[in-house]
């Protein structure tokens, strides 16, 4: 029952958000700048939610998410530029292929994950992202540093329904996964991998699985990204992009899908809406991050959590007796 209620609330939220954006778009209340924000917000939500699977649920720090995204973006763009099919058919193929190429990269990066943890893994994934960017920069087929242009804009705000559905799919995939035996295995590995292994969970397989799924979803986000801006440049996918996505997950509370979504929306919209402050975006990021870290380790926060726990326990004891 509880679950049904939650599901209903989420469905209502999704419909309200969709309807609100549609009304705003069609009524002409949004100026050009705000309209152009719609797809970037959706792609960032997809990226943040997919990264949340690795950082929040698997509990591994990675700094190469932009690498997966770029693989999806370039694969998708090249396909829809070269395929002879009608645009939407090409786009569909591009989305699947973009996800798959990124997923293969996810499997490859998943291998060091089995040997490295924490900071070391962060460094390796950072390098991995940069390698992908350098390779794209060097290849002819990807247009090198000049990039690719003339990609048909099949995912801009005129196609909001499509973008919205894709975003929903990504969110639903991750949140469904988390509430399943596979997701529980992933969370168990995060909390204690020795115990997880002792409970019969093949840790290596699930670590790689999490990376593959996350990369696949990031690849899809990349395809959407490419078909929104129409021009791809390797510089769009440097480590700053990875860090921006990571910041969304961290600010969203690590391991909270809702938090990641909200953080992605705010952090994408805010710098654009406060044009003047855009120069200070990185500064604001770091200040907010430091504030978050300080808050998390503060006595004040500990006291808050303790209070909450105490209340929960008292409630339980009352019910128990």
């Amino acid at each position, binding site marked *: 029952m509880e679950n049904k209620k939650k599901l209903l609330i989420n469905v209502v939220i999704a419909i309200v958000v969709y309807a609100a954006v549609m009304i705003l778009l069609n009524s002409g209340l949004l100026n050009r700048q705000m309209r152009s924000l719609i797809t970037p917000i959706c792609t960032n939500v997809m990226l943040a939610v997919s990264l949340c699977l690795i950082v929040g649920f698997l509990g591994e720090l990675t700094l190469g998410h932009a690498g997966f995204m770029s693989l999806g973006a370039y694969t998708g763009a090249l396909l829809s530029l070269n395929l002879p099919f009608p645009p939407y058919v090409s786009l569909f193929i591009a989305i699947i292929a973009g996800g798959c190429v990124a997923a293969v990269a996810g499997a490859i990066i998943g291998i060091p994950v089995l040997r490295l943890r924490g900071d070391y893994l962060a460094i390796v994934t950072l390098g991995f992202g940069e390698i992908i960017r350098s390779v794209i920069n060097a290849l002819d087929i990807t247009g090198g540093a000049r990039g690719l242009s003339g990609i048909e804009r099949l995912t801009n705000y005129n196609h909001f329904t499509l973008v919205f559905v894709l975003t929903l799919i990504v969110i639903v*995939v991750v949140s*469904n*996964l988390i*509430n*399943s*035996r*596979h*997701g*529980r*295995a992933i*969370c*168990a590995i*995060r*909390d*204690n991998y*020795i*115990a*997880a*292994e*002792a*409970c*019969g*969970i*093949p*840790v290596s397989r699930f670590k790689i*699985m999490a990376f593959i799924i996350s990369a696949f979803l990031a690849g899809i986000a990349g395809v959407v990204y490419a078909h929104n801006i129409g021009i791809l440049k390797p510089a769009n996918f440097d480590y700053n992009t990875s860090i921006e996505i990571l910041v969304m997950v961290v600010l969203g509370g690590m*391991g909270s899908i809702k938090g990641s979504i909200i953080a992605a929306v705010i952090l994408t919209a805010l710098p654009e809406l406060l044009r003047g402050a855009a120069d200070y975006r990185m500064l604001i990021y770091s200040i907010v991050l430091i504030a978050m870290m300080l808050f998390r380790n503060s006595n004040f926060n500990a006291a808050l959590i303790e209070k909450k*726990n105490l209340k*929960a*326990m008292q409630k*339980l004891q009352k*019910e*128990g007796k």
Partner: protein
Amino acid sequence: MALLEVKNLGISFGGLRAVDNLNMSLEKGSLVGLIGPNGAGKTTAFNLLTGVYRPTDGTITLEGSSIVGKTPSEICKAGIARTFQNIRLFQKMSVKDNVKAALHNQFQYSLLESICHVASYKKKEKEMDEKVMEILKVFDLDVYADTFASNLPYGKQRKLEIARALATDPKLLLLDEPAAGMNPNETAELMETIELIRKKFDITILLIEHDMKLVSGICEYLYVLNFGTELANGTPDIVLNDPKVITAYLGE
């Protein structure tokens, strides 16, 4: 045939011989204790049995087939479950999900079913929930089902670890100091629970314990380790009165 047969088991860490020439034979349905002073190698023996370490010498067979070289998760599937000396729960998961995670191999469905939440997923999940509540009830943990594992009091965390191990449907359950840090009341209660689960789940239990009241109260047979080697074995009344064992524990 014995359920578990350990022959000449040994492991070296560099120059240190943590376990040396250990022989054990556990009959099906028995409740056996593994005791010895601090640092004797008891936990290391558990780690060898569960595949955390690979032995440098010796053999381990479960129901006649060797488990040496298997990974911990394969050994769990083969039928050995364990608890840890320093509790290792899934802290940020609910009590219910801790046990559910351990049902991983009992109730299977594919990744696609996980992602789509189709009817078969719902059916399996419902069966899992029922199984979880059944296990939690045995330990009086059912009222805490939705609490975070980290919020449980210490004694209940130990119980949850046993519940989680049982969820993997083991033939052999290894308990590493289940009564550590418990007061006499809690220990007495734990002894009852151990007896109960042995009957209810029809399993064999091997436990490490320093509490001699618990050991002599419920164990039918004891193995004593000292400096990695087997010092004595036999029924509790004989072993615990053995001068060798008393000196090992109390010193000269």
